[in-house]
């Protein structure tokens, strides 16, 4: 039975590996479908970079690379043209932004309208830290407030240990009795 379970586990994981490998190769081929001839590898890399950071204007959650929408095809062609015409990175971003606005960028720029988006998490984290520190401080203060001297504390500890040992030996006594 154990062997059977082991064998089926191995089979399942092997299948998963094959599926994963398929997925990986599918992704590779989708980004490899570029009907464009780049003059240099640097241009190809720039194209790949921009088709990842630019968003398809029709779809909320896809970049140009991953979208089959007609507009994405057109914009990929446009991107190729801009790169071939030696536009700088900033010029490419400006070209897209002047037509499609900030929506075209996956990462929103930091400005007045997006400040809440960017800074609220940091503020909340800081607030959480402040609350945590003040809680820990208050608890430490409460322990101090018990107001026992070190000698007295030692005495309390001794007492507690004694009780513990007593209980332990009582248990041993009980065990001995029950065995007999």
């Amino acid at each position: 039975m154990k062997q059977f379970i082991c064998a089926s586990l191995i089979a399942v994981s092997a299948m998963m590996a094959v599926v994963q490998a398929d997925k990986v190769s599918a992704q590779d081929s989708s980004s490899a479908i570029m009907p464009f001839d780049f003059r240099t590898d640097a241009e190809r890399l720039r194209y790949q970079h921009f088709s990842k950071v630019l968003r398809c204007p029709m779809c909320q959650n896809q970049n140009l690379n991953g979208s089959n929408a007609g507009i994405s095809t057109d914009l990929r062609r446009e991107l190729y043209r801009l790169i071939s015409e030696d536009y700088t990175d900033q010029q490419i971003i400006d070209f897209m932004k002047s037509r499609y606005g900030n929506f075209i960028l996956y990462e929103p720029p930091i400005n007045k309208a997006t400040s809440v988006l960017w800074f609220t998490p940091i503020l909340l984290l800081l607030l959480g830290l402040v609350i945590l520190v003040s809680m820990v401080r208050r608890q430490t203060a409460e322990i101090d407030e018990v107001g026992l001297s070190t000698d007295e504390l030692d005495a309390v500890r001794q007492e507690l240990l004694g009780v513990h040992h007593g209980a332990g030996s009582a248990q041993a006594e009980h065990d001995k009795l029950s065995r007999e």
Partner: protein
Amino acid sequence: MQRLKLFLPLLIFVLLAALLFGRLGENPEYLPSALIDRTIPDFELPELHDSAKMLTPKDLRGEPGLLNVWASWCFACRVEHPFLTKIASEYGVPLYGLNYKNDIVEAQKWLREFGDPYRFHIVDRSGRLGIDLGVAGAPETFVFDRKGRIRLRHIGIVDDKVWSGTLQPLLQRLRAEQ
């Protein structure tokens, strides 16, 4: 004070709920045009019925109007077409077509079948003008003023609600502008 602190989470919850509830029902796909208050980008493209005639942004100046992005392959365009026909004939709204990434013969056939309320059609075979206008697909409708500046971009079909709620009041305001 201590008691007030107790109500702090409730207060935060109420504020958040009010904020989120207020934004409920807004169209998450609404995208204002990046070209608001800018002039219609330069183009020189043929007219659909008369390919010898070249159109430029100058042909859209003089009177506030609508530039409707359409194509025969676009089903929603067929849905809004009767309404566009109605506002063009009833209110005399200057209606211009941007025939977007469309086969010319197919587009002409489509207009013969459903009627042609447009003053003229700019043929944007490649979609290049569409990109300059920030068009994502069809149908889209731009409102421009008498100087040829874009004042509104509407994504999707134009129906009675869009017309009487947005387009008509805006056109009235633009006509009053000098």
